[in-house]
C-alpha cells in the first residue's frame, strides 16, 4: 500500500510551543529557537518514510532536534524533542561511511539512508540497487543483525539489539486508531483560526496570547454556525398577554428561522384563546408546541421535545446554533446561549448558565444573562431542526 504524504510540521510546531509555554522544556535553550524547514528523513525497516528529524536552531547553532511524524500511523505530530545529543546529518553520514569502510573495505553501495531499525533507535543503512548491504547503529557503529522476525514466537517482543518494523508489526486496529487520531490532531492545529500565527519560532508570550487557556466556554446564537464573522442574532419578544409566554417563545424560535408569525396567530394554533380572552397552555398539551412549529414552517422545521433536558442537551443543541424553547414550572422562554466554567474546584459545582430570552414581563420581556442552571428547575425543552435537501 502506498504511503500517504503527510505534513505534520505545523502541528508539531504548535505542540512544541505548548511544551515550551508550559515550561516543559528548558526556557534558556528553547526560547526563540527556530524549527528548521527541512529535516533528515528516517525510514521504517519496511522502506516507508516514518518521521523527519528536524533541527531547532538559535543564531545559527543547533540547540535541539524534534522528531516529526511523516507517517500517520505514528498517531501524533510531534514524536520527540531531544537536546544534549548533537544531530548533524552530514557529519553522522561521514562517520558512518568511515565506520563501514573499516568493517568492509570492499563495500559497494549506491544509497545511504537513516532507518529506525528498532523504533526509536536509529541506524544508517547502506543499499545497493535497493538491497541492503550493511546497517550500522548510530553512535556505536555496531552492525545491526538481520531480522529475527520469522524465528520469534507469536507475541514475543523483539530483543534489545534487533531490527523490527514499527509499521508492519503494529496490529491493524491500533494502526487505524492512530491514523484517526493523527488526522484529528492535524485538523485541529491546521484550523483557520490559527492560520495567521507563525509557529516555527518558539515564543512563550506570543503563544500564550494566542491560545489563552480556556476557563470558560460561552456560546450565543448567531445568524449561522460560522459565528466569527457576524453579530449575535436573536430577538426578544414580550408576551402580549399575561398568559401567552408559550406563544411568545414559539414566535421567537420561528423568527430565528425567518418565519414571522403574530402571537395572535400562534395562540390560535395552540388553542390559547384571543387577546381579549387569553389562556395558558395546559400541562399535558406540550405536543402542541411541536405540532405548531412543524405546521407553521410547512414541515421545514423538524421539532421535538425533551421532557427532562440536561445542561448537556442545551449545550449540544446551542453549539449547533439551534435555539431552544425552555419550559420551567408555569412559564416558557426561549434559550439562545450558554456559558459554563471549565475549571472546577473539588466540592464546588462549576457555574453553568443559560442565556434566556424571557417574554415576561408582558409586552416587554427581559434578556437574562445568565440564568443559573444549577439552582433552577426545568421542564420540557423543544428544539427545531432545519430540514436540508
Amino acid at each position, binding site marked *: 500500500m502506498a504511503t500517504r504524504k503527510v505534513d505534520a510540521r505545523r502541528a508539531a510546531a504548535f505542540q512544541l510551543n505548548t511544551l515550551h509555554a508550559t515550561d516543559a522544556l528548558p526556557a534558556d535553550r528553547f526560547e526563540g529557537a527556530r524549527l528548521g524547514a527541512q529535516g533528515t528523513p528516517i525510514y521504517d525497516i519496511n522502506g516507508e518514510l516514518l518521521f523527519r528529524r528536524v533541527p531547532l536552531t538559535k543564531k545559527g547553532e543547533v540547540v535541539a532536534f524534534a522528531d516529526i511524524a511523516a507517517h500517520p500511523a505514528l498517531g501524533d505530530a510531534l514524536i520527540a524533542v531531544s537536546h544534549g545529543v548533537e544531530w548533524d546529518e552530514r557529519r553522522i553520514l561521514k562517520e558512518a561511511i568511515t565506520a563501514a569502510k573499516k568493517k568492509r573495505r570492499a563495500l559497494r553501495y549506491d544509497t545511504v539512508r537513516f532507518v529506525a531499525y528498532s523504533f526509536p533507535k536509529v541506524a544508517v543503512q547502506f543499499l545497493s540497487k535497493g538491497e541492503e548491504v550493511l546497517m550500522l547503529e548510530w553512535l556505536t557503529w555496531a552492525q545491526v543483525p538481520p531480522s529475527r522476525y520469522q524465528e520469534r514466537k507469536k507475541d514475543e517482543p523483539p530483543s534489545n539489539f534487533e531490527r523490527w518494523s514499527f509499521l508492519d508489526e503494529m496490529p491493524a486496529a491500533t494502526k487505524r486508531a492512530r491514523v484517526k487520531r493523527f488526522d484529528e490532531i492535524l485538523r485541529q492545529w491546521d484550523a483557520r483560526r490559527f492560520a495567521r500565527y507563525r509557529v516555527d519560532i518558539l515564543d512563550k508570550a506570543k503563544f500564550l496570547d494566542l491560545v489563552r487557556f480556556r476557563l*470558560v466556554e460561552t456560546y450565543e446564537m448567531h445568524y449561522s454556525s460560522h459565528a466569527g464573522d457576524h453579530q449575535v442574532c436573536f*430577538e*426578544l419578544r414580550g408576551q402580549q398577554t*399575561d*398568559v*401567552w*409566554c*408559550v406563544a411568545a417563545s414559539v414566535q421567537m424560535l420561528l423568527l430565528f428561522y425567518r418565519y414571522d408569525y403574530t402571537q395572535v396567530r400562534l395562540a390560535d394554533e395552540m388553542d390559547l384563546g384571543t387577546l381579549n380572552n387569553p*389562556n*395558558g*397552555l*395546559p*400541562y399535558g398539551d*406540550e405536543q402542541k408546541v411541536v405540532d405548531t412549529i412543524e405546521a407553521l414552517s410547512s414541515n421545514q422545521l423538524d421539532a421535538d421535545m425533551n421532557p427532562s433536558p440536561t445542561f448537556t442537551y442545551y449545550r449540544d443543541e446551542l453549539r449547533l446554533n439551534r435555539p431552544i424553547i425552555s*419550559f*420551567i*414550572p*408555569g*412559564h*416558557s*422562554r426561549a434559550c439562545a446561549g450558554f*456559558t459554563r466554567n471549565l475549571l472546577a474546584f473539588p466540592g464546588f459545582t462549576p457555574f453553568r448558565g443559560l442565556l*434566556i430570552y*424571557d417574554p*415576561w*414581563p*408582558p*409586552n*416587554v420581556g*427581559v*434578556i*437574562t*444573562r*445568565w*440564568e*443559573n442552571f444549577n*439552582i*433552577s428547575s426545568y*421542564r420540557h425543552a423543544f428544539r427545531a431542526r432545519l430540514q436540508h435537501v
Partner: protein
Amino acid sequence: MQSQAVVRAAKAMLEQGSMADAWTRQHGEVRKAIPVEAPKGVMQSWFVPVLHGERLLGFFELTPELDVRRYSSFQKHAGDIEGCPPAADWIDPETIRRKVLQRLKGAVTGEPYLSFDTYPSRLAWAVPVTLAGGGSRLMFVAGDSVFEGRSDTGTTR
C-alpha cells in the same frame, strides 16, 4: 443589614463583568435591594435593580443565601435604553398602587409588595385590593400590565 450585603454582592457581580455588558457596568447604578415575598412576609429572593437615570436597565435576582439566580436586562442591545421601563414602575410602591387604582376605580388598596404570580419566574408586584362593591382580590402589576392573580397551577403562561 442583609439588604446591604445583597447590594454589595450585586455590585461585585456587576463589576466582575460576566453578567452585564460593558455599557451597563459603566453606566448602571445598583440601587437598594427589595425582598421578593410570596406570600407576604415569606421571603423568596432578592430583587436588586440596576438603574440609569430614571430607567430600569435590569435587575439581579439572588437567593436568600445570596447565590445569583439571574441578571435580567431590559436592554435589547448594549447601550439601548429605549426599551427600558421607567424605574418607578418596578421600585416605587406608590406608582404601582396608582396603576391598580386606574384599573379598579373606587377600590381601596393595601400595601404593595414585590412578589410573583404563582411561579417565581413571573415576577410582579402584588397589591391586595378591597373592591368598591365589597369583596377583595389580589392584583398583580408587572410593568404596564395589571392583572388579577389566577389560582390555576396547571398551565404554562
